[in-house]
C-alpha cells in the first residue's frame, strides 16, 4: 500500500489521474473501518486532509458551497439557518467523535443508501461538483446515486464541493433507529418546502437500493397544495391529503428485509415520517412558530 499526501487540490487531482484505483480518505470514518477489518486493501490511499479548500464553505445568494470535507459538527454549528435539513441530518450522524471527522463528501463517495446526508440533500436540492485533471462538472443530486454503494464518479474524479440550495422554507429530517446515537438508519426521511417555487421535495434513505425522492408523492402534494390554494391561505392541510402523501411516500420506498428491520416496517415507517414531517413543516410555514430544531 502507498500513502499519497497531496498538499494541494491540483496535486490531488494529478495523483488520482495517475492512480485511478487510489481510495480517497478524508475523515476516514468509512475507509478505516474497512481497512481495520481487512475488508479492503487499496493499493493507494489518497489523503485529503491537507487540502484546505475541502474544509471551507461559502454562503452565496442562492446556494451554499459546502466543501466535501467540512465536518458534520461544523454544519450543525454554522449552517443551521441556511441548511436546516442537512443540519438536522448531521446531528444524527453517529457520535461527536465521528461528526468531528466525517463530512458530506464521504457520504457521497461511499454512496450507501443509509448515508444520513442523502435524504436532506435530495429534499433541499443540490449539485455535486466533481473534478479531474480533465476538468470539472456538476452532477445533479438526483443523478448522483447510480446503485447500491455506487455513484456517478469516474475513476479519475474527486468530489470537491456540494452546492446545496439555501432553504427558502421549512425543512425537516428524521431517522429511525434503536437509540439516539451510533445508529445506522433503519430508514430515514427528509422533507423541504420550497415556497418560492411552491413545490415540495422529499428524500428517502435506507429504504431502496439508493437514496431516492418520492417523486409521485411530491407531484401529488404540489398539485393538491396548488389546487386548494394552501400556499396563499395557509390553511391546515387536510388529513386526506396528508394521508395520500404519506401513502405515496411509503409506496416509493423499495426496501429489503435485513438485520436492522423488515421491508414492511421500513415502508410503514417512511409513511409515518412523511406524514409527521408534512405536519411539522406546514405548521412552521403557517407561522405557528415551530422551530427547525430538535425534531431529529
Amino acid at each position, binding site marked *: 500500500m502507498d500513502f499519497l499526501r497531496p498538499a494541494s487540490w491540483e496535486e490531488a487531482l494529478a495523483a488520482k489521474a495517475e492512480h485511478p484505483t487510489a481510495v480517497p480518505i478524508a475523515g476516514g470514518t468509512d475507509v478505516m*473501518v474497512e481497512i481495520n*477489518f481487512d475488508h479492503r486493501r487499496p493499493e493507494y490511499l489518497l489523503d485529503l486532509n491537507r487540502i484546505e479548500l475541502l474544509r471551507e464553505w461559502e454562503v452565496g445568494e442562492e446556494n451554499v458551497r459546502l466543501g466535501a470535507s467540512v465536518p458534520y459538527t461544523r454544519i450543525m454549528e454554522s449552517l443551521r439557518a441556511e441548511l436546516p435539513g442537512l443540519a438536522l441530518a448531521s446531528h444524527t450522524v453517529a*457520535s461527536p467523535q465521528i461528526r468531528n471527522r466525517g463530512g458530506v463528501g464521504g457520504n457521497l463517495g461511499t454512496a450507501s443508501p443509509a448515508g444520513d446526508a442523502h435524504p436532506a440533500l435530495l429534499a433541499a436540492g443540490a449539485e455535486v461538483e466533481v473534478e479531474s485533471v480533465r476538468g470539472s462538472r456538476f452532477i445533479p443530486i438526483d443523478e448522483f446515486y447510480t446503485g447500491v454503494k455506487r455513484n456517478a464518479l469516474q475513476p479519475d474524479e474527486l468530489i470537491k464541493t456540494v452546492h446545496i440550495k439555501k432553504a427558502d422554507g421549512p425543512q425537516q429530517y428524521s431517522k429511525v433507529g434503536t437509540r439516539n446515537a451510533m445508529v445506522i438508519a433503519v430508514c430515514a426521511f427528509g422533507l423541504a418546502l420550497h415556497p418560492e417555487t411552491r413545490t415540495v421535495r422529499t428524500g428517502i434513505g435506507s429504504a431502496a437500493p439508493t437514496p431516492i425522492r418520492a417523486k409521485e408523492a411530491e407531484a401529488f402534494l404540489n398539485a393538491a397544495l396548488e389546487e386548494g390554494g394552501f400556499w396563499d391561505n395557509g390553511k391546515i392541510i387536510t388529513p386526506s391529503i396528508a394521508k395520500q402523501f404519506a401513502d405515496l411516500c411509503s409506496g416509493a420506498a423499495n426496501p429489503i428485509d435485513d438485520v436492522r428491520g423488515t421491508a414492511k416496517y421500513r415502508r410503514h415507517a417512511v409513511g409515518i415520517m412523511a406524514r409527521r414531517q408534512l405536519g411539522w413543516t406546514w405548521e412552521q410555514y403557517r407561522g405557528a412558530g415551530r422551530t427547525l430544531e430538535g425534531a431529529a
Partner: protein
Amino acid sequence: MRVNFTVNGRPQEADDVWEGESLLYVLRERLGLPGSKNACEQGECGSCTVRLDGVPVCSCLVAAGQVEGREVVTVEGLAEYAKDREQARREGGACASGACGTSLDAAKKWEAKPGQDSQTGEGVELSPIQQAFIDAGAVQCGFCTPGLLVAADEMLERNPSPTDADIREALSGNLCRCTGYEKILDAVRLAAARQERQEEAV
C-alpha cells in the same frame, strides 16, 4: 513510512509504519502509550478517543499518515493538558468573550514539563475530571474510562456548565459495557460543579 507528530507535547517519530495503520495502533504499539484502548476498531465505542489538534476523534479511524505534523493529546497527557489550560485561564482572566476552550495556537504551544512523565502520567496531579471519576465511583472495569475522560474533559472545556442532555450527547460516542453510565454522569456533574466553584473563587 515514517510519521512525525507531537504527542502530549513531545515530538515523536514513528518508523516502519504500515500505510493502512491507524493512529491508535501507532500510539499503542509503536509509541508505548496503551492508555487509548483498542476495542471495536470501527468508531462505535469511543474507547480510543484522543484529541487531534484539539478535536476529539476516534484514533482507530485516523490513518497514521494523516497525523503527520499534527498534535495529539492522549489520556496519558490529559492531566498535564488540563493543568496547563487552567493556568492559562487564570493568567488570561475569566472567559469574558464566552469563547472558552483552548485555542489551536495555545494547544500547539503546549509542552510537557520536564520531570513529569506524560508516558505513564506519573508525577502529575490528576486532572479534575480524573479525580471526579474516582470520587464518584465511575470506574468499574476501567476499559472505557480513558475515552470517556478525554471526551468529558473536552466538553467541560467547551461547555463549563453542561445540562444533563449536554453531557449525554457529548458522551454518546463512548460505550461502557459495565453499564456504569449513571456514575459516569455523576462524575461529570461533579467535575463541572467543582470547576464552577473554582471559577467563583478566582
